[in-house]
């Protein structure tokens, strides 16, 4: 690894880069960022926003696990113990008739706050964190640079979609402050129509998700046009890094699937406000139709989450293994394949509610999506074979991803199989499965990508040892938290339950302790990154020895990304024949002949 330059003073560090704000003053800097059309600044703003949302959703998740430390037990005299979260419920005073907040825990009300907490956790994590995280933060920053462009196709639209995201999140936050929803992040009818009927908060949260959908659509649209029209001369479709292919496939799903959740949530708002009755059996409609509408988007969106993470993993394993990717076209086309198949299989979320014929069709189709995913995993393993693995945090996250995502994917198979799904449906097995793919998959990939590209984005290097400790705690904590939940699920613990039979308590307590370990690991990362921003050593342009175009730019990149039109002289994975830019051959010797 090249020596990190520690001689530059902090002041001159950002000269000429996109972060340079000399001469602007405080308010000038604020206005510069608020009105920027530079994709890098917009990406950084998204990054801080999604990390804040991750924090909020994470705190809610910790609260959920803390509540589950002890089941709720009702003593003989009627008092309930074991309730941790209790924000009270509004009741009407029988004497005066006015509404007061009652903290009494009757059996029916005991789970009220818990329901609102897990809804908060799910809604914030899905709509405000994980869907925009990799595309809007890392994708915005690196897509144009990787294809050699100066910016995305529609820079002003990019800024607009950032403000749409802020606006939507604001609605969500207001809804939460007003008390939040207790429907679950899926807002299933008819409960979501009938609950809190005379309150605004469910409508506000649904509206928030609707608005956030537009941000997602506009970002995806921007990325598709950028990939088609702004590649540097000499960069064909098969000369692009696989992160760009992943961005492209993700954006296709975003553009095609998100409008359907838009109309679904709009119709749900009409249901609550006008009671038109399409999704409400008491007015003549069909509640399962809502589930079809909802999951037609929400299943493809899980592939939005994971496909982009997959793109990051392709980058991590090749750069830190210093080897070309095995099966470039296979990975590229399987990304598109996953995007395509994702639209066929939404019914597996509602097996228990569907007609048997449709259930059989969806089950058969669901098995197909394992194929392109497996192709990728095998290609990565083949990439690692005979590569020279550097043990640093990004590579550790890449390897961790392979392990965790494989578990997540394989545990999807009992859920895709009708006969086993009947037992596992709505149990903790499902919770563990989706946390393994979403957190063990996407969040691990996101953290790996952050560690990989942090020096490029901010020109600062973080403390590698602290980061590796953080990885260890995250990995261990994650597995302790969620692997136990597979057992809870197969033994019958239902999801979204605030209480449980005493037999499950041990496993729940293990899971809760795991969540604390995970939280400590994430906090270590937070402090490591913050520390690097203020006191980290300056990072050289290409400290990992990467070959894609972002490593030719400076750290951090200048305002227009490159000083001259980039010349495409080699592919993004030609580690066998090309010395990486800004690197010397002593530090990055070309690998000897590999068979």
């Amino acid at each position, binding site marked *: 690894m090249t020596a990190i330059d520690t001689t530059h003073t902090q002041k001159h560090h950002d000269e000429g880069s996109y972060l340079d704000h000399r001469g602007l003053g405080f308010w000038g800097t604020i206005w510069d960022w608020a009105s920027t059309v530079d994709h890098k600044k917009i990406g950084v703003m998204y990054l801080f926003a999604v990390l804040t949302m991750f924090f909020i959703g994470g705190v809610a998740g910790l609260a959920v696990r803390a509540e589950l430390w002890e089941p709720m037990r009702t003593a003989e005299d009627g008092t309930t113990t074991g309730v941790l979260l209790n924000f009270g419920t509004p009741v009407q005073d029988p004497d005066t008739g006015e509404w007061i907040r009652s903290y009494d825990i009757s059996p029916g009300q005991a789970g009220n706050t818990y329901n609102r907490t897990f809804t908060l956790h799910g809604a914030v994590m899905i709509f405000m964190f994980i869907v925009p995280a990799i595309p809007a933060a890392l994708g915005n920053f690196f897509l144009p640079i990787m294809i050699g462009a100066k910016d995305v196709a529609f820079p002003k639209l990019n800024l607009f979609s950032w403000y749409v995201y802020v606006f939507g999140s604001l609605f969500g936050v207001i809804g939460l402050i007003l008390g939040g929803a207790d429907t679950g992040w899926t807002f299933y009818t*008819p409960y979501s*129509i*009938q609950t809190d*009927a*005379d*309150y*605004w908060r469910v*409508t506000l949260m649904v509206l928030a998700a609707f608005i956030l959908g537009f941000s997602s659509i506009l970002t995806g649209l921007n990325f598709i046009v950028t990939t*088609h029209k702004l590649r540097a001369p000499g960069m064909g479709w098969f000369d692009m890094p696989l992160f760009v292919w992943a961005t492209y496939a993700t954006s*296709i799903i975003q553009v*095609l*699937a998100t409008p*359907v959740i838009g109309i679904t949530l709009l119709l749900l708002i009409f249901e*609550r*406000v*006008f*009671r038109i*009755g399409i999704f*409400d*059996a*008491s*007015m*003549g*409609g*069909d509640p*399962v*139709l809502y589930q*079809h*509408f909802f999951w*037609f988007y929400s299943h493809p969106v899980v592939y939005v989450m994971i496909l982009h993470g997959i793109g990051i993993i392709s980058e991590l394993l090749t750069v830190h293994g210093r080897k070309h990717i095995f099966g470039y076209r296979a990975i590229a086309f399987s990304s598109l394949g996953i995007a395509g198949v994702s*639209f*066929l299989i*939404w*019914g597996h979320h509602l097996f228990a509610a*569907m*007609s*048997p*014929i*449709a259930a059989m*069709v*969806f089950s058969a189709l669901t098995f197909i999506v394992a194929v392109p995913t497996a192709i990728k995993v095998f290609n990565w393993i083949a990439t690692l074979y005979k590569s020279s693995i550097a043990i640093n945090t990004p590579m550790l996250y890449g390897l961790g991803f392979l392990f965790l995502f494989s578990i997540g994917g394989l545990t999807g198979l009992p859920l895709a199989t009708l006969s086993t799904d009947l037992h596992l449906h709505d149990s903790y097995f499902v919770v563990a499965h989706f946390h393994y793919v979403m957190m063990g998959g996407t969040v691990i990939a996101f953290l790996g990508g952050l560690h990989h590209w942090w020096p490029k984005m901010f020109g600062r290097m973080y403390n590698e040892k602290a980061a590796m400790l953080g990885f260890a705690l995250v990995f261990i904590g994650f597995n302790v938290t969620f692997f136990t939940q597979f057992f809870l699920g197969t033994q019958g613990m239902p999801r979204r339950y605030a209480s449980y039979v005493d037999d499950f308590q041990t496993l729940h307590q293990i899971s809760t302790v795991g969540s604390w370990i995970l939280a400590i690991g994430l906090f270590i990362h937070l402090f490591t990154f913050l520390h690097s921003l203020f006191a980290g050593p300056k990072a050289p342009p290409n400290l990992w020895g990467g070959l894609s175009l972002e490593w030719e730019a400076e750290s951090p990149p200048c305002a227009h990304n490159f000083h001259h039109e980039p010349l495409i002289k080699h592919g993004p994975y030609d580690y066998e024949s090309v010395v990486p830019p800004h690197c010397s051959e002593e530090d990055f010797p070309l690998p000897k002949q590999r068979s």
Partner: protein
Amino acid sequence: MDPHGVHEHEHGHVVVDWKVLVGVLIALLFFTFLTTTAANIEKWIAVEFDVVIPTWVNVFVAMSIAVVKASLVCLFFMQLFYDKFLNSVILMFCLLALALFLGLSALDLSGRGRVNEFIATPIELGGNGASAGLQSAFDEVPVVITGGKPLAVAAKEAYIEKHGLEAWEEHARELDAEHGHHEKAPEISSPNRSIPRTGLTPGLFDEHAPIHEAEHEPASAHDESTEEGSGH
């Protein structure tokens, strides 16, 4: 003049000839005329000859004409005919996604009650109006207490209570005279089945006498609806 009605502009952008645009407009207006005429003719045939034309005929004719009109708009007004093929590909993927959505949802909802008659009490068509009785966060939305009846039935009963049955019947007669709905109604609605059930073993499943009737405690309401043969 270019026989395709197009001439290349200096910058390579295609300028569509005005004759093409006018021709497409006339074609569109013709197809509009055609589709309304077809619908009216079908209605007339149904009344005049007292036949029931299956709905799929109506749907097929109307949708085919709509697809032709939409294609004309897309190809010539939106210039897909002259454009890069990528834009047409995008539209085709969009329509494919829509077709998947419609098709697979319909596959589920069409077969819902076909195999499992596990619903204990039959649901009344139109629901029981429970949600209409909920308070709303918007004060202007009325709270309608239907007493367990569908909203439409509650509206009728409210009118009869206010104005009397004779007034209701008189107005109903007026409306029938105006619109002249023909006697033969098409298929009957049901929340649990959408097409007549044929089955391979007739008599095994009889919707009017479910197999497990002996185990059910039929409430009087259940018996009534069984007699009427509706909403089962």
